[in-house]
């Protein structure tokens, strides 16, 4: 828990990450920032998908399935956004210290979740079509 709190404090203290190591080539820092922005867009797109699902999808044959899909997309979008900041800070730190970039299972996890969600939706659509 303390680790989480200190990580959150570090995110909001922009100078903290600059206290370690040496400043890398600014192009690398900007590339890291763009990677963060790409992840934030992914998160925002998931949030937009959740909001659109809740408003524009007609009610599905399975009770509350629409709401479940919407909330799942919204929460996934929030998780992607939080993880984007953490990833940015870790990468910046690794670049300053000349270490390897941190490895992550998150992209694989996200891909599997989105794939599973799509497969479930295909099943739901087929069930609806043949009823």
């Amino acid at each position: 828990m303390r680790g989480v709190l200190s990580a959150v404090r570090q995110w909001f203290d922009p100078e903290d990450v600059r206290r370690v190591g040496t400043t890398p080539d600014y192009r690398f820092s900007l590339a890291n920032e763009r990677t963060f922005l790409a992840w934030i867009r992914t998160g925002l797109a998931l949030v937009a998908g959740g909001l659109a699902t809740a408003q524009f999808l007609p009610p599905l044959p399975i009770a509350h399935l629409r709401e479940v899909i919407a909330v799942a997309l919204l929460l996934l979008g929030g998780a992607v956004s939080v993880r984007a900041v953490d990833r940015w800070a870790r990468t910046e730190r690794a670049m300053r210290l000349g270490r390897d970039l941190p490895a992550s299972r998150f992209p694989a996890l996200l891909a599997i979740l989105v794939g599973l969600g799509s497969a479930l939706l295909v099943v739901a659509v087929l069930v609806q079509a043949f009823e």
Partner: protein
Amino acid sequence: MTDSGLARERTRLAWLRTLLVAAGVAILAARMAATRGDPLVVALALGGWAALFAVAFRRYRSRRAGPGPALPLFALFAVGYAVLGTLLVLNG
């Protein structure tokens, strides 16, 4: 190889794209609140985007290489829209 500010320009464009996506999210959230007759939440959703614009603008006026608190603020707003949307869905 020379780089006459191209990396910086690419980053600026990435901020712009992110702001555009955020505008879509803000409008969707505002529409959802409006259909439920909730003017306060509509103002909150649209005001959130204005705050994001201010954050991104400040990031690009500053001459520092580091992005400052702009990144966690952006993530915070993305989470805020996710929470707002979840509350709207659950109250619907």
